[in-house]
């Protein structure tokens, strides 16, 4: 491990781009979903579970709203994954290991939620 090597500035630019993209996509999906629901007069609060997003019974508006939430929720997770890849390329093994632990924690979170 090259302990005195500076991390490249491009890491930050990539993370910034990723966060902005995730935010914009999720906000656009939520806005469209909201507009469709209001336009159709369907503004009833319906629980949307993560694993039911492809369920036929959901309206298009609810599905887009749920998808927007999912994209937003996945953005920080993809940020962790991106840094893991970038640090692997930099051979920063200590922090690759740490980021893998975070990924494991997030997988446990999804798995525990799914087995409710």
């Amino acid at each position, binding site marked *: 491990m090259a302990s005195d090597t500076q991390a490249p500035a491009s890491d*930050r630019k990539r993370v910034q781009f990723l966060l902005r993209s995730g935010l914009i996509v999720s906000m656009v999906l939520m806005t469209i979903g909201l507009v469709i629901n209001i336009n159709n007069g369907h503004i009833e609060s319906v629980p949307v579970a993560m694993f039911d997003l492809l369920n036929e019974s959901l309206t298009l508006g609810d599905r887009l709203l749920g998808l927007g*939430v999912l994209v937003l929720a996945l953005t920080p*997770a993809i940020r*962790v994954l991106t840094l893991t890849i970038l640090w692997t390329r930099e051979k920063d093994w200590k922090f690759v290991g740490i980021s893998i632990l975070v990924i494991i924690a997030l997988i446990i979170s999804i798995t*525990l939620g799914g087995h409710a």
Partner: protein
Amino acid sequence: MILSVPLVVALVVSGALAGLLGALVGIGGGLIVVPVLVLGFGVDIKIAIASSLIAVVASSTASGSVYVGKGLTNLRLGMLLEVATTFGGITGGLIAVYVSPTVISALFAVLMIVTCVLILCTKDPVKKTAVSESLATVETAKETIGKLSGSYYDPYLKEEIQYDVQNVPLGSFVSFFAGVLSGLLGVGGGFIKVPAMALGMKVPMKVAAATSNLMIGVTAISSLFVYFARGYVQPIIAAPVALGVVGGALYGTTLAQKISPKLLRKMFAAILVIVAVQMVLKSLGVSVGK
């Protein structure tokens, strides 16, 4: 629950207010979103918490992208503390499912009072954490491969600030606790992490605030996935709040430089006390309006 267009607009405005106030006093919007939804809109507290977690992720992603761009976020320190905070978030999310809404409301009220005291006792946190006005850039910030230390250019001091990170076990412990609170109450926990990093780990205040900001996104999703999978997410409530929070938070980062932080902190503390009292009354079964 049937919503109307004015109610959806009210949710957007409430989210914007939460994002604005949160950005102005340097905390996430969770402390405001949950009571507003529970007391103002009569939403079940667990659905309110799930909505708040979504708002916290939105706020963290919006401001995180700004702070990462300005080179103030220590990505390696954030990742290290995220290990503890994500496991804490899962623990909190799991506990919350089995804890009664009454207990959660009471805990929330206590948390608001503690935050109120912290805000009043902290010296000008807004000025110190107003990183948006910083001239620091991606190019001026440095992180060393394999280490937690870093540096950034501080335009206020007109010099490059180099720092090392100390007391990692303490920071990890506090991050775990912040994660539990996040899962249990739907807050970001930044108000605990920032002092832990700044005072306990000797990280510069600006870096602590920016790093905490990025971290709360991961903290929130670790418990959000539990709520999302269990059907506590009601997007028609969460989406307008999230949209409002993003708008409010982005506007708040520019407005922060024009308002007296001292007056703002006092106003915010007063709001917290009023809402905390209402939450206590609600947990005791006393009617507080809707």
